[in-house]
C-alpha cells in the first residue's frame, strides 16, 4: 500500500541519488587524473583537476539544497529521513575528497620538473584502493546495506597500512640521502591526501550504517 502513496518523495529522492552518484563519478575521475598527472608529471592535467573542483563544489550545494527542499516539502520520516540527512553528509565528504585530489594535483605543480625521488609503487595501490572504497561505499548507500558498509570501512586498515609503508620508506630515504627531503615531502603529501580519502570513505560507510540501522556509532576508532 505505502508504495503508491509516496510517489513524489520517491521521485525527488531518485533525483538526489542520481546527482550523488554523478558526484561520486566526478570525484573518482579527479582521483584518477590526479594520479595520472603525478605519474606523467603532466602539469596542465594537474591544473585541470584543480579547476574541475569548482564543478564538484557546485554539485555539492545543489544536492544539499535539494535535500533541504525534500525535507521541507515531503516531510520524510524514519529510514527516508535518515537517507536524506545521510546524503547531505555524504556530499560533504565527497567534496572534501575532491579537495584531497586537488591537493595531489597542487603538489604535482609544485614539483615542477624535479624528477621523482623513487618509482611510484604504493601510491598507485592507494589510489586503486581509494577508488574501490569510494565505489563500494556508494553502492552500499544505494543498497542501504550495513554489512557492505562495514566491509568497506574495514578496508581502511589496508589504506593505513599502505600509508605507513610509504611513510617509513620515505623517512628512511630522507635519513640516508641528504638533499632528498623536499622531494620526499612531495610524495608524503600525496600519500597523506590518499590516506585522508580513505578516512572520508569510512565516514560515508558510517552514514550508510546509520541509514540502515539508525545506529550512529563511529567506525575504526
Amino acid at each position, binding site marked *: 500500500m505505502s508504495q503508491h*502513496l509516496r510517489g513524489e518523495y520517491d521521485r525527488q529522492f531518485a533525483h538526489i541519488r542520481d546527482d550523488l552518484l554523478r558526484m561520486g563519478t566526478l570525484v573518482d575521475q579527479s582521483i584518477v587524473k590526479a594520479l595520472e598527472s603525478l605519474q606523467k608529471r603532466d602539469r596542465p592535467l594537474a591544473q585541470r583537476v584543480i579547476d574541475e573542483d569548482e564543478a564538484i563544489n557546485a554539485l555539492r550545494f545543489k544536492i544539499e539544497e535539494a535535500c533541504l527542499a525534500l525535507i521541507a516539502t515531503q516531510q520524510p520520516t524514519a529510514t527516508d529521513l535518515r537517507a536524506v540527512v545521510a546524503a547531505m553528509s555524504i556530499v560533504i565528504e565527497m567534496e572534501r575528497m575532491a579537495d584531497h585530489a586537488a591537493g595531489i594535483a597542487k603538489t604535482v605543480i609544485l614539483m615542477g620538473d624535479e624528477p621523482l625521488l623513487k618509482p611510484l609503487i604504493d601510491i598507485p595501490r592507494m589510489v586503486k584502493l581509494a577508488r574501490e572504497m569510494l565505489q563500494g561505499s556508494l553502492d552500499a548507500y544505494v543498497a542501504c546495506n550495513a554489512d557492505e558498509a562495514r566491509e568497506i570501512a574495514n578496508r581502511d586498515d589496508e589504506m593505513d597500512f599502505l600509508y605507513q609503508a610509504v611513510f617509513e620508506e620515505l623517512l628512511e630515504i630522507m635519513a640516508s640521502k641528504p638533499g632528498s627531503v623536499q622531494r620526499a615531502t612531495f610524495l608524503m603529501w600525496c600519500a597523506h591526501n590518499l590516506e585522508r580519502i580513505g578516512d572520508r570513505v569510512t565516514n560515508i560507510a558510517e552514514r550508510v550504517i546509520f541509514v540502515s540501522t539508525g545506529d550512529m556509532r563511529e567506525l575504526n576508532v
Partner: protein
Amino acid sequence: MVNDNHTQKMMVRDLTFYYGPIQALSWISMEILECQVTALIGPSGCGKTTFLRCLNRMNDTIPDTRLEGEVLLDGEDIYSPGVDLVDLRQRVGMVFQRPNPFPQSVFDNVAFGPRVLGLTHGRSELEAVVEQSLRRATLWDEVKDHLSSDALELSLGEQQRLCIARVLAVEPEVILMDEPTSALDPIATLEIEELMRQLREQYTIVVVTHNMQQAARVSDKTGLFWLGELVEFDDTATIFTRPKEERTEAYITGRVG
C-alpha cells in the same frame, strides 16, 4: 519539482472582490502555469475560497458581489461579456471540500457531465469515457465490478475520487479543488495527494488547503493568503525553505495564524 518551461494557463491581474461592502480580496495578481499544481494556503477567512471561486465565476451567483481586475484563461478574460459560463465551467472544473456525489449509481455520476453537455454519442462511447475518467481518478479497479451500485455506498475517499472522475469526464483543462481532503482520513488523503501528482501531468490544478504540509507535498507553486492579500507566491520549495516575507516565515513555522 523540476521546473521545466511551463506555459501560462491562467493569469490573474489586480483582482479585487467585494461581498457587499466587505472587501474579501485586494489586488491579487498570480500567474498559474499549465500542468502544475498551485497551492493556496493561509488562515481561514483570508479569502482562499473566494479567490478560487473567482477562477471559474462561481461567485457570480452570490448577490451583491463586485469584482474588479482580470482573470485570463489562455489569454482571454473570463469576465468579458459574451463568455459562455457552461463552456467556462467545463474547461475549469471544481472539486469541493466534502465529496458530493449525486445519489445515483457510480456510472451515472461520471456520465452526468458528458450526458448534459452532449459530449458523447452512443452508449459505448459514454462507457469508454466513464472508464477512462475512473482510471485517471485511480478509482477504476475499486469500482469496475460495481458500476451500478449507489455512489453513496463508497467510502468517503472513494467518493472524493468519484467526484474528481466526474470532473475529468467533461475533459477540463483546469481543476480547482477547495480543501479536497479535509473530510478524509490520512490514508485517503495521501491517495488524493498522489492522484493530484498524477493529474498534473495533464491538467492544471489549483488547490486550496488549510494543511500547509499538504501544500508542501503536492504543489509546485505556493501562495500565502492573508486578510484578502496574497502575501507571497513562489516555488513551493522556496516558500518552505527560505520564504522572503516575514509573515510567510511566521505562518509556515507555526508562530502565528
